[in-house]
Protein backbone atom coordinates (compact mmCIF):
# COMPACT_ATOMS: atom_id res chain seq x y z
CA UNK A 1 0.00 0.00 0.00
CA UNK A 2 2.70 2.44 1.10
CA UNK A 3 4.78 1.34 -1.93
CA UNK A 4 2.00 2.25 -4.34
CA UNK A 5 1.44 5.61 -2.60
CA UNK A 6 5.15 6.37 -2.92
CA UNK A 7 5.06 5.28 -6.56
CA UNK A 8 2.10 7.57 -7.32
CA UNK A 9 3.73 10.46 -5.43
CA UNK A 10 6.92 10.13 -7.49
CA UNK A 11 4.97 9.71 -10.74
CA UNK A 12 2.59 12.65 -10.26
CA UNK A 13 5.32 14.78 -8.69
CA UNK A 14 7.25 14.32 -11.93
CA UNK A 15 4.25 15.33 -14.08
CA UNK A 16 3.63 18.44 -11.99
CA UNK A 17 7.28 19.44 -12.16
CA UNK A 18 7.37 18.94 -15.95
CA UNK A 19 4.31 21.09 -16.45
CA UNK A 20 5.43 23.74 -13.94
CA UNK A 21 8.85 24.09 -15.56
CA UNK A 22 7.35 24.36 -19.04
CA UNK A 23 4.89 27.02 -17.87
CA UNK A 24 7.64 28.89 -16.01
CA UNK A 25 9.88 29.03 -19.08
CA UNK A 26 6.96 30.18 -21.24
CA UNK A 27 5.78 32.82 -18.78
CA UNK A 28 9.22 34.29 -18.20
CA UNK A 29 9.71 34.57 -21.95
CA UNK A 30 12.82 32.42 -21.91
CA UNK A 31 11.43 29.91 -24.40
CA UNK A 32 13.26 31.50 -27.36
CA UNK A 33 16.59 30.95 -25.63
CA UNK A 34 15.64 27.44 -24.50
CA UNK A 35 13.58 26.31 -27.44
CA UNK A 36 15.13 22.81 -27.54
CA UNK A 37 14.68 22.36 -23.79
CA UNK A 38 11.03 23.39 -24.24
CA UNK A 39 10.55 20.93 -27.08
CA UNK A 40 12.07 18.15 -25.02
CA UNK A 41 9.88 19.04 -22.04
CA UNK A 42 6.83 19.07 -24.28
CA UNK A 43 7.76 15.62 -25.61
CA UNK A 44 8.34 14.36 -22.08
CA UNK A 45 5.01 15.73 -20.91
CA UNK A 46 3.03 14.36 -23.87
CA UNK A 47 4.55 10.90 -23.49
CA UNK A 48 4.57 10.75 -19.69
CA UNK A 49 1.38 12.51 -18.73
CA UNK A 50 -0.81 11.95 -21.80
CA UNK A 51 0.31 9.05 -24.05
CA UNK A 52 1.22 6.41 -21.49
CA UNK A 53 -1.79 6.95 -19.16
CA UNK A 54 -4.14 6.80 -22.18
CA UNK A 55 -2.70 3.49 -23.41
CA UNK A 56 -2.63 2.19 -19.84
CA UNK A 57 -6.28 3.11 -19.35
CA UNK A 58 -7.30 1.48 -22.62
CA UNK A 59 -5.31 -1.77 -22.53
CA UNK A 60 -4.30 -2.34 -18.89
CA UNK A 61 -0.94 -2.60 -17.18
CA UNK A 62 -0.24 -6.24 -18.07
CA UNK A 63 -1.19 -5.93 -21.75
CA UNK A 64 1.47 -6.36 -24.45
CA UNK A 65 0.21 -3.14 -26.09
CA UNK A 66 1.15 -1.10 -23.03
CA UNK A 67 4.57 -2.79 -22.80
CA UNK A 68 5.28 -2.08 -26.45
CA UNK A 69 4.09 1.51 -26.20
CA UNK A 70 6.08 2.08 -23.01
CA UNK A 71 9.38 0.87 -24.42
CA UNK A 72 8.93 2.48 -27.83
CA UNK A 73 8.09 5.82 -26.26
CA UNK A 74 11.12 5.44 -23.98
CA UNK A 75 13.33 4.99 -27.04
CA UNK A 76 11.72 8.10 -28.55
CA UNK A 77 12.46 10.07 -25.37
CA UNK A 78 16.10 9.00 -25.31
CA UNK A 79 16.52 9.95 -28.97
CA UNK A 80 14.91 13.32 -28.15
CA UNK A 81 17.36 13.79 -25.29
CA UNK A 82 20.19 12.87 -27.64
CA UNK A 83 19.11 15.66 -30.01
CA UNK A 84 18.87 18.03 -27.04
CA UNK A 85 22.50 17.27 -26.13
CA UNK A 86 23.45 18.00 -29.77
CA UNK A 87 21.68 21.38 -29.54
CA UNK A 88 23.56 22.12 -26.31
CA UNK A 89 26.80 21.42 -28.15
CA UNK A 90 25.75 24.15 -30.59
CA UNK A 91 25.24 26.57 -27.71
CA UNK A 92 28.57 25.62 -26.15
CA UNK A 93 30.28 26.35 -29.47
CA UNK A 94 28.67 29.77 -29.90
CA UNK A 95 31.21 32.12 -31.47
CA UNK A 96 33.49 29.24 -32.46
CA UNK A 97 32.26 28.44 -35.93
CA UNK A 98 35.29 26.34 -36.87
CA UNK A 99 34.76 24.00 -33.97
CA UNK A 100 31.04 23.76 -34.74
CA UNK A 101 31.78 23.00 -38.40
CA UNK A 102 33.89 20.11 -37.20
CA UNK A 103 31.37 18.93 -34.62
CA UNK A 104 28.23 19.12 -36.76
CA UNK A 105 29.05 16.22 -39.13
CA UNK A 106 30.43 14.18 -36.23
CA UNK A 107 27.27 14.64 -34.17
CA UNK A 108 25.13 13.98 -37.24
CA UNK A 109 27.02 10.77 -37.95
CA UNK A 110 26.77 9.61 -34.31
CA UNK A 111 23.02 10.33 -34.26
CA UNK A 112 22.48 8.51 -37.59
CA UNK A 113 24.48 5.58 -36.24
CA UNK A 114 22.51 5.42 -32.98
CA UNK A 115 19.21 5.80 -34.84
CA UNK A 116 20.17 3.16 -37.43
CA UNK A 117 21.33 0.65 -34.84
CA UNK A 118 18.24 1.31 -32.69
CA UNK A 119 15.81 0.81 -35.59
CA UNK A 120 17.62 -2.29 -36.87
CA UNK A 121 17.76 -3.88 -33.39
CA UNK A 122 14.13 -3.07 -32.68
CA UNK A 123 13.03 -4.45 -36.05
CA UNK A 124 14.97 -7.66 -35.47
CA UNK A 125 13.63 -8.25 -31.96
CA UNK A 126 10.18 -6.73 -32.38
CA UNK A 127 8.35 -10.00 -31.72
CA UNK A 128 10.08 -10.64 -28.40
CA UNK A 129 10.75 -7.05 -27.44
CA UNK A 130 9.97 -7.30 -23.73
CA UNK A 131 12.83 -9.63 -22.85
CA UNK A 132 16.47 -9.33 -21.92
CA UNK A 133 16.96 -7.60 -25.29
CA UNK A 134 15.21 -4.39 -24.21
CA UNK A 135 17.34 -4.22 -21.06
CA UNK A 136 20.59 -4.44 -22.99
CA UNK A 137 19.31 -2.11 -25.68
CA UNK A 138 18.19 0.59 -23.23
CA UNK A 139 21.38 0.23 -21.23
CA UNK A 140 23.48 0.88 -24.35
CA UNK A 141 21.30 3.75 -25.54
CA UNK A 142 21.36 5.53 -22.17
CA UNK A 143 25.09 4.98 -21.91
CA UNK A 144 25.74 6.40 -25.39
CA UNK A 145 23.84 9.56 -24.39
CA UNK A 146 25.72 9.69 -21.10
CA UNK A 147 29.08 9.54 -22.87
CA UNK A 148 28.05 12.33 -25.27
CA UNK A 149 26.77 14.43 -22.38
CA UNK A 150 30.02 13.91 -20.47
CA UNK A 151 32.02 15.01 -23.52
CA UNK A 152 29.93 18.18 -23.56
CA UNK A 153 30.61 18.73 -19.85
CA UNK A 154 34.36 18.29 -20.43
CA UNK A 155 34.19 20.74 -23.34
CA UNK A 156 32.51 23.32 -21.08
CA UNK A 157 35.13 22.83 -18.38
CA UNK A 158 38.02 23.11 -20.84
CA UNK A 159 36.61 26.28 -22.33
CA UNK A 160 36.00 27.62 -18.82
CA UNK A 161 32.54 28.59 -19.98
CA UNK A 162 30.76 31.16 -17.84
CA UNK A 163 27.35 29.98 -18.99
CA UNK A 164 26.30 28.59 -15.60
CA UNK A 165 22.81 27.84 -16.87
CA UNK A 166 24.14 25.63 -19.65
CA UNK A 167 26.34 23.76 -17.17
CA UNK A 168 23.34 23.15 -14.90
CA UNK A 169 21.30 21.89 -17.86
CA UNK A 170 24.10 19.46 -18.73
CA UNK A 171 24.35 18.30 -15.08
CA UNK A 172 20.60 17.65 -15.07
CA UNK A 173 20.81 15.56 -18.23
CA UNK A 174 23.75 13.66 -16.73
CA UNK A 175 21.60 12.66 -13.75
CA UNK A 176 18.79 11.64 -16.11
CA UNK A 177 21.07 9.38 -18.20
CA UNK A 178 23.40 7.96 -15.54
CA UNK A 179 20.80 6.61 -13.09
CA UNK A 180 18.80 4.50 -15.58
CA UNK A 181 21.97 3.35 -17.40
CA UNK A 182 23.37 1.99 -14.12
CA UNK A 183 20.01 0.42 -13.23
CA UNK A 184 19.64 -1.32 -16.61
CA UNK A 185 23.19 -2.65 -16.34
CA UNK A 186 22.35 -3.96 -12.86
CA UNK A 187 19.17 -5.65 -14.16
CA UNK A 188 21.15 -7.20 -17.02
CA UNK A 189 23.87 -8.49 -14.70
CA UNK A 190 21.28 -9.84 -12.26
CA UNK A 191 19.52 -11.56 -15.19
CA UNK A 192 16.20 -9.73 -15.02
CA UNK A 193 15.91 -9.93 -11.25
CA UNK A 194 12.52 -8.55 -10.22
CA UNK A 195 13.91 -6.52 -7.32
CA UNK A 196 16.06 -4.46 -9.64
CA UNK A 197 13.12 -3.99 -12.00
CA UNK A 198 11.15 -2.67 -9.03
CA UNK A 199 14.05 -0.32 -8.30
CA UNK A 200 13.81 1.08 -11.83
CA UNK A 201 10.15 1.89 -11.20
CA UNK A 202 11.33 4.48 -8.68
CA UNK A 203 14.81 5.33 -9.94
CA UNK A 204 13.67 6.34 -13.45
CA UNK A 205 11.09 8.93 -12.30
CA UNK A 206 13.39 10.06 -9.45
CA UNK A 207 16.20 10.77 -11.91
CA UNK A 208 13.73 12.72 -14.09
CA UNK A 209 12.72 14.72 -11.00
CA UNK A 210 16.42 15.31 -10.25
CA UNK A 211 16.94 16.60 -13.79
CA UNK A 212 13.87 18.85 -13.62
CA UNK A 213 14.88 20.22 -10.20
CA UNK A 214 18.33 21.10 -11.56
CA UNK A 215 16.75 22.81 -14.57
CA UNK A 216 14.38 24.67 -12.25
CA UNK A 217 17.38 25.93 -10.35
CA UNK A 218 19.00 26.99 -13.62
CA UNK A 219 15.88 28.93 -14.66
CA UNK A 220 15.11 30.54 -11.30
CA UNK A 221 18.45 31.09 -9.59
CA UNK A 222 21.20 31.36 -12.18
CA UNK A 223 21.60 35.08 -12.89
CA UNK A 224 20.94 36.06 -16.47
CA UNK A 225 23.70 37.99 -18.22
CA UNK A 226 22.92 41.68 -18.54
CA UNK A 227 21.00 42.56 -21.67
CA UNK A 228 22.82 44.53 -24.30
CA UNK A 229 21.01 47.76 -24.89
CA UNK A 230 18.89 47.59 -28.01
CA UNK A 231 19.38 49.86 -30.95
CA UNK A 232 17.56 53.05 -30.18
CA UNK A 233 17.07 55.95 -32.40
CA UNK A 234 19.65 58.61 -31.61
CA UNK A 235 18.30 62.00 -30.62
CA UNK A 236 18.07 64.54 -33.43
CA UNK A 237 20.87 66.72 -32.04
CA UNK A 238 23.22 63.74 -31.91
CA UNK A 239 22.41 62.70 -35.50
CA UNK A 240 22.98 66.17 -36.79
CA UNK A 241 26.22 66.50 -34.83
CA UNK A 242 27.53 63.22 -36.25
CA UNK A 243 26.49 63.96 -39.81
CA UNK A 244 29.45 65.03 -41.96
CA UNK A 245 29.39 68.58 -43.00
CA UNK A 246 27.66 69.16 -46.32
CA UNK A 247 25.65 65.93 -46.12
CA UNK A 248 21.87 66.29 -46.14
Amino acid at each position, binding site marked *: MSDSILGYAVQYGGYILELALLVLIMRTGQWRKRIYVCLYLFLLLSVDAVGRPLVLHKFGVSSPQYSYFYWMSDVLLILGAFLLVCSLFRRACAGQEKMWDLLLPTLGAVFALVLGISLASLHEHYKNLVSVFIVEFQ*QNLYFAC*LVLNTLLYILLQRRESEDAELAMTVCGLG*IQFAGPAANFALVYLAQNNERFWALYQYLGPLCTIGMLATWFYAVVHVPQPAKVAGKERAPAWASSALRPEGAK
Partner: protein
Amino acid sequence: MVLAAFILITSTALFFFYLQAACQRALSTKFEQEYFRSIVNANRLEFLSLRKELEEYGHAVDYGRLRMTLKCDFLALTYLLKNAANVNQRYSRDESLLMLYFRALFVIVSARRLFHLSEKKGVLKLTAILEYFANVVGQRVNQYRFGNLAPSDYLLEL
Protein backbone atom coordinates in the same frame (compact mmCIF):
# COMPACT_ATOMS: atom_id res chain seq x y z
CA MET B 1 28.68 -9.26 -19.24
CA VAL B 2 31.94 -7.31 -19.07
CA LEU B 3 30.35 -4.41 -20.97
CA ALA B 4 27.37 -4.36 -18.58
CA ALA B 5 29.72 -4.33 -15.57
CA PHE B 6 31.71 -1.50 -17.15
CA ILE B 7 28.52 0.48 -17.83
CA LEU B 8 27.29 -0.17 -14.29
CA ILE B 9 30.50 1.12 -12.68
CA THR B 10 30.95 4.10 -15.01
CA SER B 11 27.30 5.17 -14.87
CA THR B 12 27.16 4.93 -11.09
CA ALA B 13 30.33 7.01 -10.81
CA LEU B 14 29.00 9.56 -13.29
CA PHE B 15 25.64 9.69 -11.51
CA PHE B 16 27.32 10.79 -8.29
CA PHE B 17 29.68 13.05 -10.22
CA TYR B 18 26.79 14.94 -11.86
CA LEU B 19 24.94 15.18 -8.53
CA GLN B 20 28.05 16.68 -6.96
CA ALA B 21 28.62 18.99 -9.93
CA ALA B 22 25.04 20.31 -9.64
CA CYS B 23 25.56 20.98 -5.91
CA GLN B 24 28.89 22.71 -6.56
CA ARG B 25 27.23 24.89 -9.20
CA ALA B 26 24.59 25.90 -6.70
CA LEU B 27 27.33 26.79 -4.23
CA SER B 28 29.06 29.04 -6.73
CA THR B 29 26.17 31.54 -6.59
CA LYS B 30 27.65 35.02 -6.22
CA PHE B 31 26.28 37.26 -3.47
CA GLU B 32 26.27 41.05 -3.72
CA GLN B 33 28.54 41.31 -0.71
CA GLU B 34 30.25 39.11 1.87
CA TYR B 35 27.25 38.64 4.14
CA PHE B 36 28.84 35.66 5.86
CA ARG B 37 31.40 37.67 7.87
CA SER B 38 28.83 39.34 10.14
CA ILE B 39 27.11 35.99 10.74
CA VAL B 40 30.41 34.30 11.57
CA ASN B 41 31.37 37.06 14.00
CA ALA B 42 27.96 37.28 15.67
CA ASN B 43 27.73 33.54 16.26
CA ARG B 44 31.41 32.88 16.87
CA LEU B 45 31.52 30.29 14.11
CA GLU B 46 34.90 28.70 13.54
CA PHE B 47 34.84 27.33 10.01
CA LEU B 48 36.75 30.32 8.63
CA SER B 49 39.66 29.84 11.02
CA LEU B 50 39.53 26.13 10.24
CA ARG B 51 39.79 26.88 6.53
CA LYS B 52 42.70 29.23 7.14
CA GLU B 53 44.46 26.57 9.20
CA LEU B 54 44.00 24.01 6.43
CA GLU B 55 45.25 26.39 3.76
CA GLU B 56 48.32 27.25 5.82
CA TYR B 57 49.33 23.83 7.11
CA GLY B 58 47.73 21.56 4.52
CA HIS B 59 46.07 19.44 7.21
CA ALA B 60 44.04 19.92 10.38
CA VAL B 61 46.11 20.06 13.56
CA ASP B 62 43.45 18.33 15.64
CA TYR B 63 41.04 16.09 13.73
CA GLY B 64 38.65 15.70 16.68
CA ARG B 65 38.28 19.47 16.97
CA LEU B 66 37.80 19.74 13.19
CA ARG B 67 34.86 17.34 13.25
CA MET B 68 33.30 19.02 16.26
CA THR B 69 33.75 22.50 14.75
CA LEU B 70 32.15 21.53 11.46
CA LYS B 71 29.28 19.79 13.18
CA CYS B 72 28.57 22.68 15.57
CA ASP B 73 28.76 25.31 12.82
CA PHE B 74 26.47 23.22 10.64
CA LEU B 75 23.90 22.88 13.43
CA ALA B 76 24.06 26.59 14.25
CA LEU B 77 23.71 27.66 10.62
CA THR B 78 20.89 25.25 9.81
CA TYR B 79 19.04 26.53 12.87
CA LEU B 80 19.53 30.11 11.66
CA LEU B 81 18.49 29.17 8.12
CA LYS B 82 15.19 27.94 9.48
CA ASN B 83 14.54 30.58 12.11
CA ALA B 84 16.38 33.81 11.32
CA ALA B 85 14.27 36.21 9.26
CA ASN B 86 12.56 33.24 7.60
CA VAL B 87 8.81 33.80 7.42
CA ASN B 88 8.06 30.25 6.25
CA GLN B 89 10.13 28.68 9.06
CA ARG B 90 11.30 25.89 6.75
CA TYR B 91 14.21 25.13 4.46
CA SER B 92 14.04 25.80 0.76
CA ARG B 93 14.66 22.95 -1.72
CA ASP B 94 18.21 24.14 -2.45
CA GLU B 95 19.03 24.32 1.24
CA SER B 96 17.68 20.81 1.86
CA LEU B 97 19.73 19.48 -1.05
CA LEU B 98 22.88 21.19 0.20
CA MET B 99 22.29 19.89 3.73
CA LEU B 100 22.08 16.40 2.29
CA TYR B 101 25.25 17.06 0.32
CA PHE B 102 26.99 18.29 3.49
CA ARG B 103 26.07 15.11 5.35
CA ALA B 104 27.26 12.90 2.48
CA LEU B 105 30.55 14.81 2.27
CA PHE B 106 30.97 14.54 6.03
CA VAL B 107 30.72 10.75 5.81
CA ILE B 108 33.19 10.71 2.89
CA VAL B 109 35.69 12.82 4.85
CA SER B 110 35.42 10.42 7.81
CA ALA B 111 35.91 7.45 5.46
CA ARG B 112 38.97 9.09 3.89
CA ARG B 113 40.40 9.65 7.35
CA LEU B 114 39.83 5.97 8.13
CA PHE B 115 41.87 4.95 5.08
CA HIS B 116 44.61 7.52 5.85
CA LEU B 117 43.80 9.61 2.78
CA SER B 118 44.00 13.41 2.70
CA GLU B 119 40.78 15.04 3.86
CA LYS B 120 41.78 18.59 2.94
CA LYS B 121 39.73 18.85 -0.28
CA GLY B 122 36.61 17.46 1.37
CA VAL B 123 36.90 19.75 4.38
CA LEU B 124 37.33 22.77 2.11
CA LYS B 125 34.12 21.77 0.31
CA LEU B 126 32.37 21.48 3.68
CA THR B 127 33.50 24.97 4.66
CA ALA B 128 32.29 26.26 1.27
CA ILE B 129 28.81 24.89 2.06
CA LEU B 130 28.88 26.54 5.48
CA GLU B 131 29.96 29.82 3.89
CA TYR B 132 27.03 29.57 1.48
CA PHE B 133 24.61 28.99 4.36
CA ALA B 134 26.07 31.94 6.27
CA ASN B 135 25.71 34.11 3.16
CA VAL B 136 22.06 33.11 2.75
CA VAL B 137 21.32 33.90 6.42
CA GLY B 138 23.21 37.20 6.18
CA GLN B 139 21.38 38.20 3.01
CA ARG B 140 17.99 37.41 4.57
CA VAL B 141 18.76 39.33 7.74
CA ASN B 142 20.09 42.21 5.69
CA GLN B 143 16.80 42.46 3.77
CA TYR B 144 14.89 43.09 6.96
CA ARG B 145 15.22 46.35 8.77
CA PHE B 146 15.08 46.04 12.52
CA GLY B 147 15.26 49.69 13.56
CA ASN B 148 18.90 50.60 13.93
CA LEU B 149 20.05 47.05 14.50
CA ALA B 150 22.87 45.68 12.37
CA PRO B 151 22.51 42.03 11.22
CA SER B 152 24.95 40.89 13.88
CA ASP B 153 23.02 42.74 16.63
CA TYR B 154 19.79 41.14 15.48
CA LEU B 155 21.34 37.68 15.54
CA LEU B 156 22.77 38.23 19.01
CA GLU B 157 19.26 38.93 20.28
CA LEU B 158 17.74 35.88 18.57
